[in-house]
């Protein structure tokens, strides 16, 4: 029997509320929400400005099953989010670290802030950004760069049945909208989390 793994997100005020999920929606609700439907939409900015969704967390939790160890956790997209969603010069951006795993430890969770219903702050905002990432030299990456053939390795921790915490580090990502992004309800896109299991 293999390990039982579920996808999780974290929402709300720190330390964040763990939420099992199969779908999450980029939105501008503060406190953050998994999927507020058509409430708290993302907004196309006026000329020359950039608006963003609140940043969003995605990771995995080992809930049971039989296994020796799980490691090499990777996250990816179909590689065509910009085109599928008509984002123009916008994108989905994902936070990176200069060294080590790119995922954010659960203990470093930080609630997204911004203007509820309008925009969330940039992960890299020098003042209001994510403390775990905002001072890193490396910029956020385009999520379209991470696909089945070149996924983002976000956690190299080896999890065993004895591991006290069985939640992986968290991929931190947000929708970035420019003045040439297209409006509308976007088609659901299927990302993935993959791991090695012994």
């Amino acid at each position, binding site marked *: 029997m293999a390990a039982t793994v579920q996808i999780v997100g974290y929402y709300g005020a720190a330390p964040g509320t763990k939420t099992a999920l199969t779908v*999450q929606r980029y939105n501008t609700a503060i406190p953050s929400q998994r999927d507020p439907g058509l409430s708290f939409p993302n907004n196309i900015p006026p*000329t020359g400005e950039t608006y963003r969704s609140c940043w969003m967390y995605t990771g995995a939790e080992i809930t049971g099953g039989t296994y020796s160890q799980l490691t090499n956790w990777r996250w990816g997209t179909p590689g065509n989010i910009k085109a599928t969603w008509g984002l123009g010069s916008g994108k989905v951006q994902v936070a990176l670290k200069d060294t080590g795993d790119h995922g954010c430890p659960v203990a470093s969770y930080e609630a997204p802030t911004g203007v509820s219903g309008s925009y969330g702050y940039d992960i890299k905002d020098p003042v209001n950004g994510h403390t775990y990432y905002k001072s890193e030299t490396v910029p956020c990456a385009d999520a379209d760069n991470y696909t089945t053939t070149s996924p983002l390795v976000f956690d190299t921790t080896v999890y065993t049945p004895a591991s006290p915490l069985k939640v992986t580090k968290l991929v931190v990502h947000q929708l970035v909208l420019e003045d040439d992004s297209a409006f509308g*309800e976007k088609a659901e896109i299927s990302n993935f989390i993959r*791991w090695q299991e012994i």
Partner: protein
Amino acid sequence: MPEQAVNVRAFVVYSDQYIAEQGELERIRGDPFPCDEDFGCPR
């Protein structure tokens, strides 16, 4: 290799600022094609 899907959605609208900006541009430009004028070049 084990894998699980995690789907993402988004709903995007024009911000109030974007709409105000477009309204202002329209006001400045005026109607570029008044229907009672002929823009063809006379022979």
